């Protein structure tokens, strides 16, 4: 397993060396959201009784940063290695397909969780947060970063240029995130969009995560788990199969 450990370590060092853009920038981003939204909206909106808007906003914001960064980690690492050709350094050694998959996935989870923690710490400057059910917080953080880390592997292998990745980010991940209740409870949406949101896995990631903090949520956290767990497993399975197939990695 030491090949796996080395690749995991290398993938973590890779983003750690450029902390400024991989961790600090997304945390700063979240801080700006907090500053603006909580200032503008906190007087007008209370989604759940006894929960301030800023406190309501926090879990969604953490989850958004976490899954975007998990995706960015595996996808950008893979496309960079493919485009520069140095992917051969990990294709030539006797790493198994599973080790390859697991190293990229775990590194993405680490990046997602580190950024998530950063956003959480910044959030605590703005508002008190409860941690009603820490176990749920952890479960949804890990499952969501795994799902998007795996999606990042798939996108990184498939994409031929950075443009393709930006496409996935801007036309799939961003809209799904914004339509998932990061900034609002979906109960405040017109019923059509409420219905649509129920097909959005990110909605369940955020809702279950929010339950972990506030102990209240739009849907039962067990239902969220019942959606998010299979989605994460499916994404991971697809990523592993893609690596096994050698698609775009081995001619």
């Amino acid at each position, binding site marked *: 397993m030491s090949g796996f450990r080395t690749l995991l370590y290398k993938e973590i*060092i890779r983003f750690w060396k450029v902390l400024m853009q991989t961790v600090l920038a997304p945390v700063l981003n979240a801080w700006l959201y907090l500053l603006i939204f909580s200032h503008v909206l906190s007087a007008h909106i209370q989604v759940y009784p006894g929960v301030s808007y800023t406190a309501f906003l926090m879990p969604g914001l953490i989850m958004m940063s976490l899954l975007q960064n998990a995706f960015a980690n595996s996808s950008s690492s893979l496309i960079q*290695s493919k485009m520069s050709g140095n992917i051969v*350094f990990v294709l*030539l050694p006797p790493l198994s397909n599973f080790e390859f998959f697991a190293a990229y996935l775990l590194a993405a989870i680490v990046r997602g969780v580190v950024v998530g923690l950063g956003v959480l710490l910044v959030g605590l400057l703005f508002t008190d947060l409860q941690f009603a059910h820490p176990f749920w917080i952890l479960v949804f953080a890990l499952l969501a970063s795994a799902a998007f880390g795996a999606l990042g592997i798939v996108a990184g292998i498939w994409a031929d240029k950075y443009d393709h990745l930006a496409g996935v980010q801007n036309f799939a991940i961003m809209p799904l995130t914004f339509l998932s209740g990061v900034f609002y409870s979906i109960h405040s949406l017109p019923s059509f969009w409420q219905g649509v949101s129920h097909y959005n896995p990110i909605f369940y990631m955020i809702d279950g995560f929010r339950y972990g903090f506030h102990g209240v949520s739009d849907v039962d956290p067990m239902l969220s788990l019942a959606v998010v767990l299979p989605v994460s497993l499916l994404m991971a399975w697809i990523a592993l199969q893609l690596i096994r197939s050698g698609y775009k990695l081995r001619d």
Partner: protein
Amino acid sequence: MPSAIRLRGLEKRYGLVQALRGIDLDIAEGEFFALLGPNGAGKTTVISVLAGLARPSAGSAEVMGFDVVRDYRETRRNLGVVPQELVYDAFFTVREMLTFQSGYFGLRHNDAWIDELLATLGLVDKANAYTRTLSGGMKRRLLVAQALVHKPPVIVLDEPTAGVDVELRQSLWAFIRRLNREGHTILLTTHYLEEAEALCQRVAMLKDGRIVALDRTDNLLRSEEERRLELALSSDDLPDSLRGRVLSQNGRRFVLNLPEYGELEAILAQLRQADIRVEEMSLRQADLEEVFLKVMERAG
């Protein structure tokens, strides 16, 4: 002697391009072997198949008895590849790259060997430099070092001396020769045919995905009856006995055919008898480059 590399009916298609059209080849353990051929002949494709970077469309390939597809992990443990492309990872330093590469092969305490590689390849000063700051030749040396971190029994070098300066080329070959003496099998591609001629016991020439010549280097050199004797003489006329050998004449300069070195003695004796002095003399033997060109021409 078991085969270090064994190809059987190996074919590779990239879409519509048929890069390999049925290659059969055995390279014995401990051999120093050259794979030659013009651009696009399929040399890199053979190497890619061995390394698992490309998958055979038909036929099979084995490294140290392990099938490249079925036993891919064993194959890769036994193989060290210096890729043709100058690739590097700009995020890391020379030493980091070598430490990672060792780790991928399951080697966790490899510093003594890494230090030796750095010293042999003249990279000690650059050990802590970021790879993007290396010159082209230094990047090439780093690729060689990376291929050797796990002391693979079979070493494959795809044009390792392209862009490397004379001094390093010499020391690189001295090093590879040493590894060969220690029992490593070496497979080499190069467009510098004098390198292949000096280093390799056997040569395969590839053209358009097929092997068009495969023999010991000395046999290939002998196969072309191209030994010639160039003379500048004190006379512009030759004794009758030598006229049949003349390939060309320019005043008192002659080029004579010389199939066997042993005949040199007799030729000189005949000149002495006719009272003709030799002012300049040189022997020319076909080199691998000429053989290569002939073989390629014949192969159409």
